[in-house]
Every structure is written in structure tokens, then in C-alpha cells.
């Protein structure tokens, strides 16, 4: 990621394991990545590869059965992992980074007016009065393209696309520098989806917000992405700029993932990846993709190094 801007977020060796009866699930296992100011990184991967867990790990939204949580997260060059839970809640969550959770449109409280719900984070985290917070909510509604008179409506009175915009307004109302979007449009219609991505692009331009977009929809993700990180079995296997990644992915898994995307405007036959991702309870030693990889060789039984190549990073022996 070559960027003249300073780095907004730097994640180093982030680890999050869940305790289960059969042993710890290594959902996030040694993740490193960086994100520049006013950039968007998309994290691609199949379900169960740990993408949503990564979002939760960055925001320190830990489930009760956490077995291990370590690593370093620098936000504006400040290691937020050193903060206590209370400091993190007061100064980081919503203030600096916020989350639009998966299926956020269905996560709104059905018995509260959406305006009040959007105002709430501003009151709690920014110490605004109710009137100020409602004003902030009103401004944010305009930004995300929801009519002002919707402030006093209840979630059931809004369509799916509108509710998704409300969830987005809620994440943005405190003007954080980073918003994490977990599958923001997967339940929405095509035109609504295109509309929401237009809104996200505009917000990125106008407010200078950075985004982490978590999705398995590769085609749509290219609407917002400056950078791409591919995740497989709890690890990031490739990072790079979108303009390099989309035409020419490096890691064999990224290549196969890209080849599986049906395309409207090209005639190549989409391919599928045979086999299943490995269990995260006892992942194979060496490269975790080796079992499904068409290019594997003897080396692959050893843990692959992260290779830097023209500003891109890939975790694969082929490039060593």
C-alpha cells in the first residue's frame, strides 16, 4: 500500500481465538495490514474465513468465549490495544471507529424512532444534548440520502435500502475517521446496492472517512476499494492496491477466487474451487491453502513467508 498520506490504522499480528469444547478456534491468526487516511480496504474471503471476526477484533467487540486476544492496533500512531476497556469504549469506539454490522437493517430497534436511534451514539459518545444530537442526525440523514421527515418514523415504515442508510447514518453521526462495513449490501436489491455504493463513495469524498469493507461479493466490492486484502482460514494471504489486484491477483487462492466471479461483460467461464476450507480448530501446518492449491509443491508443507513484491504482499512460496 503505497500512500503519501500518513497511516490511519496499522494492525500487527492480531490474534483472536474462541474457546470451544473441541479446542480454540483460530478465527483471526496473525493478521497484519495497514490502511491510509481516506482510503477503503476491502477484505475478501469465503464465509468462515474470519472476516467478521477480524472486524470484531479491531473494534474489541469480544464474545464471552474469547480464548486469546493479542497483537497491536495503531490508530493515528497510538496503540489502542494498551487502553483499558473503558478508555477504549469512551475514546475509540464510535468516536474514532464505528461499525455497520451485518444485516444492520434488521438490527434497528423496532420500538424507537429511527432519528432517536441515530442520535443516541452522538449523545453517549460526543456528550451532545438531545437537541444537538438530533440536529447531527438530521445532517447525517441528508448525507446518506434519507429524507428528513423519516427522522420520526419507525424502522418498519422504511424499506430495506432506507434502513441500511439509517444504519450507515448511525455509524457516521459521530464523524469517526474509520467505518467498518460488514456485508453492507448483501441483503439488498441490485439498484439499491448500486445506490448505497454511490452514497459511500460520496461520503468518502466529502467527509474523508476511511472504510474497511468486509464482503464476499467481489464484483461489488470493487466499487469502493482502493486496497484489497484476501483472507483465508484466519490469515491474510494477499494485500495490494485494487488497481493491481483485480487484473492480476498473485496468490493461487486469490486467482481462483477471482476466476469464480461470474462476469457480465466478459465471456470467460467461471471456475470453482474444489474442496473445503480447513477447520480453524486444527488448521494444517504449513500453507493453509496447500490442500486445495493447484500449484503446491514440497515447500508448501512449511509455513510460507510474507513476500513483498512491487508494493504488494503475498503469503506464498511461489514468490519466495
Amino acid at each position, binding site marked *: 500500500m503505497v500512500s503519501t498520506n500518513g497511516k490511519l490504522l496499522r494492525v500487527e499480528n492480531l490474534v483472536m481465538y474462541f474457546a470451544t469444547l473441541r479446542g480454540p478456534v483460530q478465527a483471526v491468526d496473525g493478521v497484519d495490514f495497514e490502511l491510509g487516511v481516506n482510503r477503503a480496504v476491502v477484505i475478501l474471503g469465503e464465509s468462515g474465513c474470519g472476516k467478521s471476526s477480524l472486524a470484531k477484533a479491531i473494534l474489541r467487540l469480544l464474545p464471552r468465549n474469547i480464548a486469546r486476544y493479542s497483537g497491536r492496533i495503531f490508530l493515528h500512531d497510538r496503540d489502542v490495544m494498551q487502553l483499558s476497556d473503558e478508555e477504549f469504549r469512551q475514546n475509540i469506539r464510535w468516536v474514532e471507529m464505528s461499525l455497520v454490522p451485518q444485516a444492520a437493517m434488521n438490527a434497528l430497534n423496532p420500538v424507537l424512532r429511527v432519528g432517536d436511534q441515530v442520535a443516541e451514539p452522538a449523545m453517549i459518545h460526543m456528550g451532545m444534548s438531545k437537541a444537538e444530537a438530533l440536529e447531527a442526525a438530521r445532517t447525517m440523514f441528508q448525507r446518506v440520502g434519507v429524507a428528513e421527515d423519516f427522522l420520526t418514523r419507525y424502522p418498519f415504515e422504511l424499506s430495506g435500502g432506507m434502513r441500511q442508510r439509517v444504519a450507515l447514518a448511525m455509524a457516521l453521526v459521530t464523524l469517526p475517521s474509520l467505518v467498518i462495513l460488514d456485508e453492507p449490501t448483501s441483503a439488498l436489491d441490485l439498484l439499491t446496492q448500486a445506490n448505497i455504493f*454511490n452514497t459511500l463513495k460520496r461520503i468518502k469524498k466529502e467527509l474523508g472517512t476511511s472504510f474497511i469493507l468486509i464482503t464476499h461479493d467481489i*464484483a461489488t466490492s470493487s466499487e469502493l476499494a482502493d486496497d484489497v486484502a484476501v483472507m483465508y482460514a484466519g490469515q491474510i494471504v494477499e494485500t495490494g492496491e485494487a*488497481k493491481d489486484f483485480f487484473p492480476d491477483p498473485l496468490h493461487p487462492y486469490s486467482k481462483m477466487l477471482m476466476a469464480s466471479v461470474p462476469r457480465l461483460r466478459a465471456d470467460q467461464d467461471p471456475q*470453482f474451487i474444489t474442496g473445503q476450507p480447513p477447520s480453524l480448530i486444527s488448521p494444517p501446518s504449513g500453507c493453509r491453502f496447500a490442500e486445495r492449491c493447484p500449484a503446491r509443491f514440497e515447500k508448501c508443507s512449511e509455513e510460507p513467508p510474507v513476500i513483498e513484491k512491487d508494493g504488494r504482499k503475498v503469503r506464498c512460496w511461489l514468490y519466495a
Partner: protein
Amino acid sequence: MVIEAPSRIKPEMDQREVLLSIQNLHVWYELRRFGFGIVGYVRAVDNVNFDLHLGEAVAVVGESGCGKSTLMKTILGLVKPRQGQVIFEGKDIAQADSATLKWYRSQVGYIQQDPYGALPPFMSVRRILEEPLVIAGVKSRQERLERIHRVMEEVKLYPVEDFLGKFPHMLSGGQQQRVVIARAMILNPKLIVADEPVSMLDASVRVEILKLLRGLQESHHLSFIYITHDLSTVKYFSERIFVMYAGKLVEQSPIGELLKNPLHPYTHALLSATSDPDARNALSFREVPPGEPPSLVKPPTGCRFHPRCSQMIQGLCEVEDPPEFTPVPDHRVACWLHKESGGD
């Protein structure tokens, strides 16, 4: 408006036998107040006509709420139309008695969208697949088992013995969807209706399942109705495409022709909103028609797309419902923009 019968002037298509013919179909849901007194209707499907040939795969594309699921349910005989016919091999399913319906249901397979929701959690794969056979009156246990084995091999759930005793929660999403497909196929139907069969699956598995369905469709010479909102998968799957908007069929065409030459402004919008993975996408905004699909309780007068259409003709589009025009052979569109280019 005068309702015309579907035209049958498709020379090369017509050599195949018509399996299913939808004529003048209206499906309206009643809106009641306090349980009595009809206060209005939801016009979920409004005057839809098409023919489906034996061995033909068609895709129905549209946004949620456009009536595509209602159309599917009517075809499956689950919803009774208010008006119009669903003719399958010469029998009108909309008016059929229960014996005909029972026969009909053995001729039509249904592949649900969410495989986990579609499979009963308390039944093993074997029982799930055996049930349709029992209902269809296959008495011999041996024959039932043989047919289960055959269909599971066809959907590539092997080794079969390993899967027979498993329950749905023990299977991956792709395997669950294979069981759903096996269940739809087990009575050797002539027609399969698939409602977003891959939308809940991962990208890599999605292609695998689509290829499996395509393979089954070709080898068994099945007629196939593929309901989806994902235009990028359509061309790998079907020969013709129907575009639905607000309860109406606005455009129908062979797939290659539609992708090259979309005629309806709505189809245009759908195509331009579909992304291919390309870093340049992030640099520009997509053109999206303003607004949202209309309420089907009080649909707009005239063309139902006119409030969102950038090419609306004042004094025509908001007044009169556009009939179907055929500007290109086999390519029909319900839009006034094409009235000059060859009417009905």
C-alpha cells in the same frame, strides 16, 4: 386495455413443444381491514404472458417485490390466480382438482433459496429424499433406495452411504443445496423452478452449483425457470430472460440479444448497476434511476416505471399502459419508446 393472447410467431423456437403456457395471468392478494371487507388488492402479478418450451431454461429477473416470487408460487400451484391460466401439458393448473394437482406436483420440482431453511432439521438425508417417493406411491423399499442412490450420485453427493444418515446441520451450505436439488429431481420432473438457488452460497460454491444445475438441465432435457436478481449469472444458465418490474413482464428476449441490446430503460438500469470486478469502478458513480419500486396496491398509472424513467414521454407514458412491441424478432418489450420500431 385489450388483452391479447401471446403471439406464437417464433419460428425456430416453436419447433419445440410448449410445456408451460402462462396466459393473461393476474395474481392479486386481497387487502382486508379487521379481517373482513376488502379494501384493496396487491397486484403482485398483472397480465403476464409467456410460453416455456420443453427443455428450455429461462431466467426471471427483477428486484424484490416485483412479483417474481408470486409468479413462481402460481406456477407451482401454491397460489390461485385471480384471472388467467397456467397451462401445463394442456391442463389448466389454476383450476385443477386435487388429483391433477398431485400429478402436477410430481412433474414440477422446486429448489428453494435458503437450503438450510428448506430442509427439515429432524430428518436425515435419506428420509428427506424418501418422502416424495412415498407420497408419489412408490411401494417398494428397494426401488426407493435405488432411486435415492441414483439421484444422489447425480447431484454428486458421494459416497452416498456417508450422506444417507446425516442431518441437514451436519452438511455444508453447498451440500445442503445439493440435497435440495436431489429432492427436486427425485420424481423425474419435467420442469424445475429454482428461486435464487445460489444467492445464499459462497462465491466459489455458487459456480459449482450453477454448473451442476446446468448439467442436470441439459442431460435430463428439463425445462427450467431460474429466478434471480443477479444478472451476471444469468447468461451461464439460461437461453431466454424475462425482466419483471412491479408485477409486469417488461422485456423478454434471448439472453445474448438482451445483454447486447437492452430495450427497456429498466433493463438498462439493471445492466448498468451490475458491477464486474474492476478497480476503475471506484472512480465513478453508477447511474441509478431515482426512487424505489412502486407500491403494488396503487401502482402508477400507465407504464409503472414512468416515475423513475429518464426517457419518459409526457402525455403518453403516464396515461396509457404500454403494450408489447417486437422491434427485433424474439425480443419483446413493453415500452412506448419502441412503438415506431414495429408494433404488434
